[in-house]
Each structure stands twice: as C-alpha cells, then as structure tokens.
C-alpha cells in the first residue's frame, strides 16, 4: 500500500533535515501508529504521502502510484485515495453535519443520488444520523471529530491518515473515536495515525513506528508506546 525507499527531506530554507533516509512499508489493511516528539518528522512524513511536500531524495509509492514523479494534475486523484483527519476537526461552520460530509463528495463531482446514499451510510457508522441537520457549534468536540471522520471516509478511501485525532478530546470520547477507527480498519481500510497518547497505543496493541530526529528508531508489531 505504502512504500518509502531512502526518503530524505531537507528544508532548504532553514537547513533542517526533517526525514533522514527513511525506509517504510505499510501493507493494505494495517493499523499503524506513528509516534515521536514534536518536530521528529511525523508530520513531514504525512505531508510527503499526500504530495503536500516533495522529498529531496528517495522514492514514495502509494497504492502503486509514484508520488514523487506525480504530475500536477494527478495530485487530486492521489488525494482521493486518502481520507484525512486533523486534531482541530476543520469543519465548515456555516454548513450542517450533513452538508459538511456531502461537501467532500460534491467537490469531486459525485452524482447527487450517490451522495445522499453514502452520506447517510457514513453518518450511521459514526452514529450521527439523527444530528445531520445540526451545525458544528451545536456539537461536542467528540461529535465534531466524528463528523470529520465521516467526511474522511465518505469517498471510500483505501487509506485514512489521522493526525493526532484525539489530541483535543477527553479520555472517554477518545475511546469512542478509537472504536470507530477500529471498525473502519476491520472493514479493510488502512489507517495511519500519529499520536502522543500512550494509553491508546498500549491498549490497541497495533504496529508502532517511532520517529526521532528524522529517523525511524523503532518499528514493532503489536507494540507499546
């Protein structure tokens, strides 16, 4: 699913080596935690996968697609293979729950009939069907993140990237969210999640990749934080 070979990212402006000769393979259907302190290179790794940044050296393949040599007009189609979730949810305040989720389908020109069916289905998965007409400011943090998850998976991506998705949530809500991730993963979607939360990593017992100073210092199946 994901294949990184000798990937180095050097930020020319400040001379920082964000990633240093990284090799990483992630198979389809895996659930991988990426851990490490801030500035370790975690977010650079995420950005490289989505072609927000390009590596200084090395090869990156996502689902057989050569990300490094991607043409500009192909970038949107690469991104359609991902669902992205952020720590700060990033919902549109002037749109309802339903509209927020539907927006992700609208802008890739999905026919309306399919939009309605898919949005209802993912709102069922995250348990927000009955709040579909609510606006984000009428929801709790956990509910908002569930909307963001619904938006991320509504286009049926092969890969979900979650950047500190539980960073703003209390422990009980965190487990609701992790439960949803587990179900999405069980349905066959690959999940890559960065986190600082020891508890989550230790209890989930999934693959853990630790990055420090731009290098992978640990890669462990059923690992702990």
């Amino acid at each position, binding site marked *: 699913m994901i294949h990184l070979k000798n990937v180095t990212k050097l930020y020319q402006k400040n001379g920082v080596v964000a990633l240093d000769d990284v090799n990483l393979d992630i198979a389809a259907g895996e659930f991988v935690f990426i851990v490490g302190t801030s500035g370790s290179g975690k977010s650079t790794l995420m950005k490289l996968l989505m072609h927000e940044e390009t590596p200084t050296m090395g090869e990156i393949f996502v689902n057989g697609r050569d990300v490094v040599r991607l043409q500009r007009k192909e970038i949107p*189609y*690469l991104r*359609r293979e991902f669902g992205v979730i952020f720590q700060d949810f990033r919902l549109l305040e002037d749109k309802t729950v339903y509209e927020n989720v539907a927006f992700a389908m609208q802008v890739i020109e999905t026919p309306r009939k399919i939009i309605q069916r898919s949005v209802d289905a993912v709102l069922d998965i995250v348990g927000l069907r009955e709040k579909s007409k609510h606006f984000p400011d009428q929801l709790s943090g956990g509910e908002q993140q569930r909307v963001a998850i619904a938006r991320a998976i509504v286009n049926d991506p092969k890969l979900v990237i979650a950047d500190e998705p539980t960073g703003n949530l209390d422990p009980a809500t965190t487990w609701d969210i992790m439960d949803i991730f587990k179900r999405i993963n069980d349905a066959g979607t690959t999940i890559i999640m960065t986190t600082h939360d020891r508890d989550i990593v230790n209890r989930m017992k999934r693959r853990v990749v630790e990055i420090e100073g731009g290098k992978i210092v640990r890669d462990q199946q059923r690992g702990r934080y």
Partner: protein
Amino acid sequence: MSATNNEGGTEMNFQTIEYYFHEVFLSMIRKRWMTFASIGTVTVSLFVLGVFLILVMNMTKLAASLENQVQISAYLIDGLTAEEQKEIAQTLKDLSTVSKIEYVTKEQALKTLQERLGEQKKILDALGDSNPLPNYFLVTVKNSSDVKRTAEVIADIYGVEEAKYGQDVATNLFELTHLVRVFGIILMLILAMATIFIISNTIRLTVFARRKEIAIMKYVGATDDFIRWPFVLEGILLGLIGGSVSAIILRSFYSAMAEKIYSTLAFFPLIEQFPFLNYLSLCLILAGISIGVLGSTISLKKFLEV
C-alpha cells in the same frame, strides 16, 4: 486513472454548474457592497471607453466624408459687376479639372443656412435685414485628388476672395482624431488597470473568506479547475454586468444625441444607430468579460498554489 470519478455523465455536469452558480451568487450577496463597487467601476470604465469609441469613430467618419468632398466654394468679393462675375465663371469653366460650376447668391446662401440650422434659425434674427454672407461659385471638381491644386488656382483669380474646401478641414480633423485616440488609449489603459485591480481585490476577498473550504477541497481531491471555476465565474459575472449596464446607458445616450442632432444639425454625418450600437455593446460586454477573467486570474494565481 485521471478519471477516477466519472460515472454520472450529463447529470453530474449540470450539478457542478449548479454548484458553481450557487457559490458565486452566495459570495456576491455576502459581500454586496464590494460587488456593487466592482460592478460600478467596470461600468464607469467601460462607459468612458464607449464614449471614446463613439467620439473617435464619428470623427473619423466626418473627416473621411469631408475628404471625399469634391466641391470648392469660391467666395467672391463684394461689389463685383455682372461683367466681372461672368468673366470669373468663364475662367472657372475653362479649368481642366472642373466638371461643373453653380452660382449661389448671398440670398440663396442665407436661405440654405436657415434650413440647415432648423429650429435654431432664430439665432440669425440677430442679423436683422443685413446679410454678411458673400456670393460664391460652388465648383465641382472631377477628381478628389485635384481639389487642393484647383483651389489654389481659384484663389488666385481676380475677384475671388477665398477658396474653401472640405479637405482642408479634413486634415485638421484627422489630426484631432489622432490626438483624441492617443489620449483615449492612455486613459483606457489606466482605467483598465484600475478596474482589473478592483476586481482582483473583490475575488481575493472571496478566496480569503473561502480559504478553509479551499483547503478541505484540496485535501479531498478536488481538481484545480473545480476549485478555480467559481472564482473565475464571479469575475466574468462582475465584468458582464458592468459591461451590460454601461452598454445600456451608452445606447440611450447615443439615441438621444442622434435624435437631437437629426433635428438640429441634419447635415452632420453621425454614424447610424444600427448596427453600430450593437457592435459597440458587444465590444463593451466582451471588454468587461476580459477584464473580469484577468482580474480573477491574477488574484487566484497566488492563492491556489500547493
């Protein structure tokens, strides 16, 4: 692979167009004052452009029609005897370049002038019973290229005070037209830049208000074109509305002016209203659209790079 999501056919395209228009109208209504100001600026700029076009084209036409005139007016000094007039007539007829001559008395000249002035002939009342106009011969020349040379010869004939012809005026008018044109082009460039600037600022406000949406669109894989279109459409619409409004104003303006001129200065060769006004409108609307596209493209270039 570049058509991952292409099932849906025409229904999908219609849905997308509907989405674009919805977005554009929403943003135009949200910042209605900015929209109003942009349309106003486009209207004023294009109105000025239209005025200059009308001016330049009419002056060119007038100059051309004067240039094609093959008639020379040979004004006679006062107090010539009938014998002397006959002699002058004979001299004129003998010129090889002349095809026809006609004698016009000062009384006839005054009558013609009264007819030309139409409703405004009252201004001639100030003359009372006196008639300051001279008697003259209206000399028609065979070839318009001979007008200047012939006029020079006629001016030297004894008893002729002055030989006037249209080309004289035409040359001056062409020079004036040229000046107006240069001035108009410079003014238009300045106005065009100002208009493009204000449109691009209006679009920039939309882009700024939508930056969160744009970021999400990029994350979920919307194409650049899909993201760009509503903004370009907004620019086009601002230009289109501004161009149309200025065209409507200019049309009624020109019609009113034409009517006035036909009733008072019938001899003035004003360009016929149709199809001239249709071309003019089309020209203004196209200019508006181009300005809109330019303005939005400029503001998008900076914002849509990732």
